[in-house]
């Protein structure tokens, strides 16, 4: 339904905008700047700062006839109110006349700015916001030029107040606009900062434990219109005007938030480019203007530090020793030759599309198997009935239903949590179907619990409630299946015009997620919610480019330890199975030839015969495919560690003397897509590109149907987005970056995939009478090798722990913070870990965060004993 249009004039310009538009936004659309502080285009107006005051006139209406009165010349008779009005809170109305540049309006702004300056310190010269500060800009643009407040009467307040370890507050600089408090309350749903006191003493406080306890805290530093809030990471580290901006994509989760990496050259780093901070880059179809703190603060692993691998390593006399690329590549090519099906290439969704393409192609050329290293399956289905092009959470509202199943969404993919929540606020029916409570429940219309281990069955119960083709339901799900809540949810889902499902891996391993995906696919097929915009299946994958991997044909093994054990040669890229589960150690028996390609000398790399040093994502180009099937480019922000990027002298010629000519330059880390291409060269395979990511992408697009038609140019296209942010008027949206380097493009769906699948295996699952079952869960702040490079987050990440229900804890006589000995029934290995208590968990359930060193990749029998 099209909104009714309203026409008005703003500073003489004619504007036509939808009914309900605020004057301040209507002005922005025609390029008239009405200054704001408290208003933020992503939040409801509050009209507190009074900066946006303008004169507003409205047509006079004849009371008797209801007709507008006219001047003698026939124009409408306009009446102006006695007071200035706030443009940020006033919706447009027909015939309105807005004057923002009159003496009265200008005086209003000057007055307000003078008021703000009476208590704002004059420390722009040392302020982190200096150079991109809305208050500074607006004072220069609209200020009175002189302050009559006596400088030595200024109030002095604390300037270095830590709101926890991540964010600092400068109390003097705060102008009480409330943006941060409202963001945390309304958008992040974590009201852990607030105002205390009142009047001129009004100040931001936090009483959470730890301070400012929210995954979203960094965003407040972007929208703060002064330098009052800063991240510890950036504070005093650089000045905005020294920084260059490189467009990038976050590689921590499948959302694919658009980032800007701010870099500068530093003497301490030998004159090299160094990343100083990570900022959100606007993409209204992906992350809008937000990013989570993991994306903002978790980039340190990609920087160039002493622990990074700089040269290839080759095992000689039992020891890994530095080698030349030529030597390492030669050795690997020789050993791979003829291995055929004995070769397994194991790679993770941390890699770019280009990397996975070349790796897959090399493996295929050698006759080996490519395996995706992941804890979650179902991508074969998302490639077929995943999000169709044109799907955007921002467009979901009253006519949509969103089912989130088996996912702790804020932990697994924070931005999706945020966007799903916003959609629910706009009226989308949100159904949360989980084994346990999560933060998303607060916004759910239907919040349904299934017994642990019964995710797929729970979805089948929804199908069962709708479909004449009734799948059999196991016993443990019957109670839920019979509930009116479930029936209501099923009906709402089926009847919604558009519907999407997000499925995750909370408490599940590969087999369970495969079954869940299949059940979800069936629900979408049964209700005809696929194949068009705002419909389809979304996998909440563990890695940034898992979707890309699935699109390129990568699949996980359902029994990886056994497969690895049987292989003759392993090529492991961007994966560290040995750290994740010591059981994989068995695969490294010394007989087989193991190649590892990584940034760091991981536990797995230590066991390798050859180690290839890879470039981090900030040192190179590439593209990721987000869970929403959006392919997005990232650009190099730094020079690679050692040398120039490789150049090819005569591409395409067989066994070109690529390495001989370049040996001197080519001794540092290489892009993950280049290394397999070099190997291919050595092995004499054709059709590999390695000179640049764009060349690889061109081949990828030519050979992969769903990517067909995509080019790097196309991915770099932009169009104007609303709200307008990051230009000279950064007071409007904050300091988030405007997107000038590409909004990406959504993949087409694989055709003809869509017919009802067989019902998945959803056998009954019962919790044991003795002992317990450990279920893997995902924490945003994990203990993976990647994130641990961000020292600042260590306190938030914490030590390894498990979560028990209150009853279970009582039974074991353990309280929050106590220790427990956890023995894995099968292997009889045991560990002592700390316990957190969640009162809502049932007995016999143990939640084990992934990557915290516990070998729990799916439901795993355990025994528990108090360990004091």
């Amino acid at each position, binding site marked *: 339904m099209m909104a009714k249009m309203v026409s008005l004039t703003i500073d003489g310009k004619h504007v036509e905008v939808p009914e309900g538009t605020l004057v301040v936004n209507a002005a922005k659309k025609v390029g008239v700047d009405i200054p704001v502080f408290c208003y933020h285009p992503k939040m409801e*107006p*509050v*009209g*507190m*700062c*009074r*900066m946006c*005051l303008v004169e507003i006139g409205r047509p006079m209406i004849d009371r008797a006839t209801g007709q507008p009165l006219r001047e003698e010349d026939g124009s409408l008779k306009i009446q102006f109110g*006695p*007071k*200035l009005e706030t443009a940020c*809170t006033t919706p447009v109305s027909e015939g309105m006349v807005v004057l923002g540049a009159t003496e009265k309006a200008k005086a*209003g702004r000057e*007055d*307000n700015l*003078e*008021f*703000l300056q*009476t*208590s704002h310190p004059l420390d722009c010269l040392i302020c982190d916001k200096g150079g991109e500060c809305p208050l500074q800009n607006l004072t220069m643009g609209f200020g009175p030029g002189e302050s*009559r*407040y*006596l400088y030595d*009467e200024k*109030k002095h307040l604390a300037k270095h107040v830590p709101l926890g370890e991540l964010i600092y507050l400068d109390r003097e600089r705060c*102008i*009480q606009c*409330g943006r941060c408090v409202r963001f945390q309350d309304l958008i992040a749903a974590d009201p852990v900062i607030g*105002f205390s*006191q*009142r*009047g*001129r*003493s*009004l100040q931001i406080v936090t009483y959470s434990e730890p301070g400012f306890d929210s995954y979203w805290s960094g965003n407040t530093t972007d929208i703060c219109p002064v330098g009052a809030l800063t991240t510890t990471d950036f504070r005093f580290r650089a000045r905005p005007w020294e920084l260059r901006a490189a467009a990038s994509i976050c590689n921590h989760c499948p959302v694919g938030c658009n980032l800007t990496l701010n870099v500068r050259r530093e003497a301490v780093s030998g004159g090299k480019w160094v990343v100083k901070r990570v900022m959100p880059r606007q993409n209204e179809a992906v992350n809008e203007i937000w990013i989570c703190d993991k994306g903002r603060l978790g980039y340190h692993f990609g920087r160039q530090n002493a622990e990074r691998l700089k040269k290839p390593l080759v095992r000689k006399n039992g020891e890994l020793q530095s080698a030349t690329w030529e030597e390492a590549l030669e050795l690997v090519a020789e050993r791979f030759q003829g291995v055929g099906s004995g070769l397994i290439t194991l790679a993770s969704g941390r890699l770019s599309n280009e990397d996975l393409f070349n790796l897959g192609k090399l493996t295929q050329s050698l006759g080996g198997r490519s395996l995706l290293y992941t804890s979650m399956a179902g991508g074969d289905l998302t490639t077929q009935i995943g999000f169709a092009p044109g799907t955007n959470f921002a467009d979901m509202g009253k006519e949509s239903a969103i089912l989130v199943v088996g996912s702790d969404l804020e932990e697994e993919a924070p931005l999706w949590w945020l966007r799903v929540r916003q959609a629910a606020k706009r009226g989308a029916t949100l159904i949360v179907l989980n084994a346990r409570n999560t933060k998303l429940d607060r916004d759910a219309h239907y919040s349904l619990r299934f017994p642990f281990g019964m995710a797929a069955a729970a979805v089948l119960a929804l199908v069962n409630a709708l479909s004449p083709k009734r799948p059999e339901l196991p016993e443990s799900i019957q109670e839920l299946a019979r509930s009116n809540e479930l029936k209501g949810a099923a009906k709402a889902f089926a009847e919604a015009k558009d519907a999407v499902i997000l499925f995750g891996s909370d408490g599940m391993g590969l087999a369970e997620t495969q079954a869940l995906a299949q059940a979800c696919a069936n629900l979408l097929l049964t209700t005809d919610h696929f194949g068009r915009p705002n419909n389809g299946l979304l996998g909440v994958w563990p890695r940034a480019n898992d979707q890309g991997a699935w699109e390129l044909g990568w699949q996980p093994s359902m029994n990886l330890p056994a497969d690895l054990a049987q292989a003759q040669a392993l090529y492991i890229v961007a994966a560290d199975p040995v750290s994740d589960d010591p059981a994989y150690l068995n695969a490294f028996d010394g007989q087989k030839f193991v190649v590892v390609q990584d940034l760091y000398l991981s536990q797995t790399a230590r066991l390798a015969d050859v180690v290839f040093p890879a470039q981090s994502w900030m040192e190179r180009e590439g593209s990721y495919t987000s869970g929403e099937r959006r392919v997005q480019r990232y650009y190099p922000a730094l020079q690679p560690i050692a040398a120039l990027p490789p150049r090819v002298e005569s591409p395409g010629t067989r066994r070109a003397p690529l390495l001989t000519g370049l040996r001197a330059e080519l001794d540092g880390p290489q892009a993950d897509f280049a290394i397999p291409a070099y190997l291919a060269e050595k092995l004499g395979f054709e059709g590999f590109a390695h000179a640049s990511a764009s060349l690889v992408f061109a081949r990828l697009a030519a050979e992969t149907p769903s990517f067909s038609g995509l080019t790097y140019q196309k991915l770099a296209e932009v169009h104007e987005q609303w709200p307008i942010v990051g230009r000279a008027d950064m007071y409007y949206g904050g300091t988030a970056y405007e997107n000038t380097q590409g909004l990406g493009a959504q993949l087409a769906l694989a055709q003809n995939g869509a017919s009802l699948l067989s019902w998945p295996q959803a056998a009954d699952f019962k919790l044991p009478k003795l002992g317990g079952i450990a279920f893997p869960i995902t924490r945003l702040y994990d203990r993976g090798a990647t994130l641990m490079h961000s020292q600042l987050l260590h306190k938030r990440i914490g030590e390894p722990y498990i979560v028990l229900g209150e009853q279970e804890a009582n039974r074991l006589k353990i309280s929050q913070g106590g220790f427990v000995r956890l023995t894995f029934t099968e292997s009889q290995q045991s560990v002592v870990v700390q316990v957190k208590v969640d009162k809502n968990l049932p007995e016999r359930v143990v939640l084990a965060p992934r990557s915290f060193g516990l070998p729990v990749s799916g439901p795993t029998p355990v025994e528990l004993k108090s360990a004091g």
Partner: protein
Amino acid sequence: MSKEKLPYFLLRHREIPDLDNLEVYRRNGGFQAFEKAVTQMEPTAVTEVVKASGLRGRGGAGFPTGLKWSFIDNKNWPHYVVANADESEPGTFKDREIMEGNPYQFLEGVAICAYAVQANAAYIYLRGEFWDLAARLDQHIAALEAAGLLGENLFGTKYSLRIYTHLGAGAYICGEETALLESLEGKLGQPRLRPPFPPSYGLYGKPTIVNNVETLTNVPLIIEKGADWYRSMGTEKSPGVKIFSLSGCINKPGNYELPLGTTFRELIFEHGGGIPQGRNIKAIMAAGASSSLIVADERALDTPMDYESVPSVGAQLGSASVIVIDDSVSIPWLIDKTTHFFRHESCGKCTPCREGTFWMSHLTERIANGRARREDVELLYDVASQIRGKCLCALGEFSIEAVLSGIERFRSDFDVAVGEIQVAAQVEQVPASD
């Protein structure tokens, strides 16, 4: 000149002993109006009577009460009634006397209002300092419930009503109705953006009528005796009686219940017994600290105290808290008191009020303490003018009234204060403390 003394309608406890006893109140006709409304009148008919009476809000703004009730949004339920018993305007102490002395008439007014807008729950928001009073109101409410005058199925009808007290905790801004609602919701007492107004978006986002204690206390008698009776008192645009809280430099401070339209002269000199120690009256503040300063000349003294006449002497009637200022008082000292009050009570939400009251109080402090120069007075005037018309709620606008009118109308006091006219200090004036 004095007219015949009317009987008390609001401060009836002054004539009827033990009126705070339910038995006594009922013996004097209490709760018959409520019973009549619930059993014999349509809710809208109740509103119509109140509308016809011309009763205007006694909380300060003088908004027609019946009209407000008729704005209640009947598409959104449930409805609430909130009695504003925050009484924090300096110089105002009438609601407290009503609630202490004649509590049942007030509670009956709340009940009738609730019936008129079909609310089943009403809250009385009392300033936190009315702690003991709230405890007594709780007892009165319990007595009403015991007597079947509050609770389920009242008088055998389907209508039910509960009344609850709620204590604030020391914040003048919570008298502003939207800040009050925020506070009642358990949030900071900061005003909301308006529109929407409470009758469409009030407590918990539901349609709500907020009325002052005195306003509501008028209602039982209006229902009992009719709109015409009410209109027989006061003036055409300001019908009825009003309680004037009289304080300051006056012989007999206290509450005076008089018809609207009574002159300042009658209140101050007849009822209030004039100025102590034979001093001269210098200025009048008609609406507590939020008032502009009226120059107390003959014309002003003969001005009727009603909503339409007071503006003719450059002021507002407001809550009719009349503070009398005699010629021993220095106006710079006085505005230093008022700006300190507003600086202390500014909620901090909007810039002009938060920063402006802070700045003004810096200046008034210097001026009052004799440390200022003429430029400071000019600047003070500018700063006050700069606040005008820009604030989110009326508190900020109130804060400048005494300052601007003080400088405009009592300029010579400021000349003295900045040392441009030498006059021996007239009274001992202790600096303001906040």
